[in-house]
């Protein structure tokens, strides 16, 4: 079979896969009696049509960058980590314990400590499946799925019986102290100008306390942490000995073993990094948005990491772009529910389709493209 040019492999294959996923999604919308064009317009309007929409889209994007990077690192070691959801929930527990431990004087200190807490808890939750895979050959896909269910049960127990303050009905932790509140986009100087609340004459409104008013959005400084992590992951994978070993191990376990790479070490380290990244996602939603630990805090973002990593071709740049795409999908999908009464499960359908086309049917896309390219090539030869 002819080879595709590199640019086609990197850019065209994911775009065609995405187009196919979008096409089937449109058919699904038609079959439940909705107009795909109208739905798309609502999504664009709601997700990227206003600064307010961007404030939510980028909030989701932040979470998906973390979980996408988590899946990416594991993929490079040849491991399929479906446990991002559970690792994120444990990361959320780490964030909550750090935030509730002392009265934090400033958010920068709290952010640093909470990031470490999230990473440690997330990594710890990934460590057991990693150890079982490395030492006992237990299939990491199934063990990580089981750990998702166990994490959910553990958090229900902790929130109902341990962390819930006396006298509170809903299963959630106490509110975090004010010192842990991360600046959201409407509070960051410079960016917040986009969120100014204007009156009918275009003058920014002023509150009764004499402060300028801004629309609140959940996107927060964690976005910059996520982008920094994308750079760190890139550096680890392509600029360090460890990264080389991880990628070599993922390409061929036998060859890596022969070259003296220790499989136990690589599996453990790759999964610990992966779990830490998935856990760090919770800084964004638990600390940046909710301000306390709730049940099911990660809301499926751990699973979306799979789609993001596949769509982003397991490269940090691709992951960031794919995370933005899924951020758009999530915020837009929420708008679909509000405006067109399309259930939010539509987002899971698109997510499944993207994973199917980019991850499992990529060979099909490649075969189609190769045939088209072959056609062009033979025409050119014929002309010459």
């Amino acid at each position: 079979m002819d080879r595709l040019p590199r640019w086609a492999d990197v850019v065209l294959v994911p775009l065609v896969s995405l187009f196919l996923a979008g096409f089937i999604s449109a058919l699904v919308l038609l079959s439940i009696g909705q107009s795909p064009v109208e739905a798309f317009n609502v999504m664009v309007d709601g997700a990227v049509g206003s600064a307010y929409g961007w404030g939510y889209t980028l909030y989701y994007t932040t979470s998906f960058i973390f979980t996408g990077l988590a899946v990416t690192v594991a993929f490079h070691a040849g491991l399929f980590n479906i446990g991002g959801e559970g690792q994120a929930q444990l990361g959320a527990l780490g964030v909550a314990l750090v935030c509730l431990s002392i009265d934090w004087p400033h958010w920068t200190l709290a952010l640093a400590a909470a990031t470490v807490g999230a990473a440690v808890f997330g990594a710890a939750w990934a460590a057991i499946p990693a150890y079982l895979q490395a030492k006992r050959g237990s299939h990491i896909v199934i063990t990580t799925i089981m750990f998702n269910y166990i994490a959910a049960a553990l958090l229900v127990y902790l929130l109902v019986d341990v962390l819930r303050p006396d006298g509170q009905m809903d299963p959630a932790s106490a509110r975090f102290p004010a010192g842990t509140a991360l600046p959201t986009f409407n509070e960051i100087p410079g960016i917040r100008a986009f969120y100014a609340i204007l009156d009918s004459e275009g003058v920014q409104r002023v509150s009764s306390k004499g402060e300028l008013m801004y629309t609140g959005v959940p996107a927060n400084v964690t976005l910059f942490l996520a982008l920094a992590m994308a750079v760190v992951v890139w550096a680890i994978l392509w600029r360090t000995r460890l990264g080389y070993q991880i990628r070599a191990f993922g390409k061929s376990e036998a060859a890596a073993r022969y070259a003296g790479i220790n499989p136990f070490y690589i599996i453990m380290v790759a999964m610990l990094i992966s779990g830490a990244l998935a856990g760090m996602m919770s800084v964004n939603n638990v600390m940046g948005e909710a301000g306390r630990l709730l049940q099911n805090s990660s809301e499926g973002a751990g699973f979306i990491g799979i789609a993001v990593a596949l769509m982003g071709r397991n490269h940090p740049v691709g992951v960031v772009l794919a995370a933005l795409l899924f951020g758009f999908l999530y915020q837009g999908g929420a708008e679909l529910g509000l405006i067109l009464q399309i259930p939010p499960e539509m987002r899971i359908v698109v997510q499944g389709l993207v994973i199917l086309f980019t991850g499992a049917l990529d060979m099909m896309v490649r075969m189609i493209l190769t045939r088209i390219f072959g056609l062009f090539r033979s025409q050119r030869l014929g002309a010459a």
Partner: protein
Amino acid sequence: MDYATLLQILDSTLRLATPLLLACLAGLFSERSGIFDIGLEGKMLAAAMASGAVAFLTGSAWLGLLAGIGASLIFALIHGIASITFRGNQLISGVALNFLASGITVLIAQAMFAQGGRTPPLEGNARFEPMALPDAATLTDWAATSTVGSVLVPILRPIVRVLELIDAGLRAVPLFGELYSEVLLGHSVLVYIALLTVPLSWWVLNRTRFGLRLRAVGENPAAVDTAGVSVVGLRFAAVAITGVLCGLAGAYMATALQAGFGREMTAGRGYIALAALIFAKWRPVAALWACLLFGFFQALALRPDVVEAVVQVKVPVPFLDALPYILTVIVLAGFIGKAIPPRAGGEPYVKER
């Protein structure tokens, strides 16, 4: 714990083990042919929704069952195309189909019934009711109402008479009589179908030519190919069997175990079935015991009072909920013997040229 409580728990063990068993055998056919399938969960969910919807609309549980099998087969076919025809990553295909099923079932149920992504509650013939042994009275009714019945009943009457005698005899045995009447009897027909599928699967796999080839294609597809048998054909056949069995499992969830489809109603059963499959080392009879064990743990999770009475400590309910999953990990950790999967599992077959 008294004997009556134990019987109650064993009764729900059998009910809860049934979908696990069907899904586990489904996975068995696929994996023995070399196709990993973590999409059992999604197929069950799709089948549950389709059967719940069709059973409600037609009022027939059997038509619901057919629809469930159809829905599951569609998902199985997509998995087959992705992993056999296009040699894609089987794990990723399974995960994708699980998400697809999770979302699309709710979307369709909401579009059809507008009841928050559920199907309306089923009653009467739209559900598989507990099955009763045929007795003389039902036969007389049948003979009176249909011509086929009037021909067959004289032949059947002695057989039913013998069944009634055996039934009475079994009931009279101390202790076992109660086990027989409380635990083994009074389930829907799908429970007995699931139990019969175990020896049937064993026979197909170990005593037929198809089964031999199926096992061979999961261990060494090149050898099967050399012998002139189609690897693709065998694997598609296996994936289709998986679809049918997952369809039964899903339909059982919606039309027998519960009365209708609810979102995410399979709750990880597809994955537990996979774990049971590994625990059973990909063998049908062992799969029965594994699924009964996992069913027993699910049954225990429903009875925290009993668990507390036995262990004399207050056990948090979430711990009981997590117990089947924790046990699964312990089983997978290989503390109970080593499990060796089919050798060609997960690897697409590429014919040499």
